[in-house]
């Protein structure tokens, strides 16, 4: 896959992530969704799968495209595609910070449940004093937008 195709794929991964907010599905399903989103010029499923499995691709998505992509350790080895775009208005951020996921084993940002296997997967949010806040648990990738919202609300939106 050349550089231009890679950039196209990354943009479409970002678009699909933004559409679903937090997607949890099989690898085949994700590839199908991506190929549909890209359209005619979509690369082959194998090439796409290889490209998305690369660590560099996942790091680039997280660093520059506000998207987290990883293969989880659950029993079906599902793929997770999470949008890391943060609400930037104070009211939206405040409301989002107050929402709690239905289960104590879920990430507070993406609400995906880890069903008891949280060690090494979900981490507590710590305040400035190093104390856990509100029993909030987050994936490593989800910490970034969540902390940004927390900082935004702490500073009163400025």
């Amino acid at each position, binding site marked *: 896959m050349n550089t231009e195709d890679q950039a196209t794929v990354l*943009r479409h991964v970002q678009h699909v992530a933004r559409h679903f907010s937090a997607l949890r599905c099989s690898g085949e399903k994700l590839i199908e969704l991506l190929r549909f989103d890209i359209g005619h010029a979509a690369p082959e499923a194998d090439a796409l799968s290889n490209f998305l499995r690369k660590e560099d691709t996942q790091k680039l998505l997280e660093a*520059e495209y506000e998207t987290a992509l990883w293969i989880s350790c659950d029993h079906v080895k599902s793929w997770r595609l999470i949008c890391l775009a943060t609400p*930037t208005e104070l009211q939206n951020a405040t409301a989002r910070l107050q929402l709690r996921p239905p289960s104590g084993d879920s990430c507070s940002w993406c609400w995906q449940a880890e069903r008891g296997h949280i060690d090494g997967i979900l981490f507590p949010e710590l305040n*400035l004093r190093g104390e856990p806040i509100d029993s909030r648990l987050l994936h490593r990738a989800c910490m970034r937008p969540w902390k940004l919202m927390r*900082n935004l609300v*702490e500073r009163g*939106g400025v």
Partner: protein
Amino acid sequence: MAKNEVSEGQQAPAVPSIKPLTRSAMTFADARFVQWSVIMPRGVSKEQLTLSGLWSVIGDQLHTGDRLTVMAEDRSYYAECLVLDAGRGFANIHLLNYYHLPALLVAQEGLPPGFEIFFAGDLGNGDGGYCAKRVCDGVLMTKGHNNREACLAALLESATLR
């Protein structure tokens, strides 16, 4: 005999003698002074940092020479202070450094006034992604960015804002 280079009426300046430090004057900083970390509640201004009343409850834990690293709870500033004198109910604090921390520019309120950043989706040909527009007339200032920070940087770099 060598000519005396110093003329009459002038004397060579005397090198001031100074008593050298004794070994007991120097020890590890950690053995003598404490470095404290303080989280300052919201609403405490720069001028209030050195007020004795602010430190009246914890003053008895402080000693002369202690350093205080102050972080505002709302992340608005970072300061370094030196304890000159402290005891029960009072503290004499000297402000060494005060750093006002930058605003979160990615916030909607942190943008330059009159501009808005939005995500246009993937429209191909670099038209989509994060775009910045001028609110008054809807003119697109910049487009096709992958994230909000890049779009903001491009907006701030654009000719009309420089």
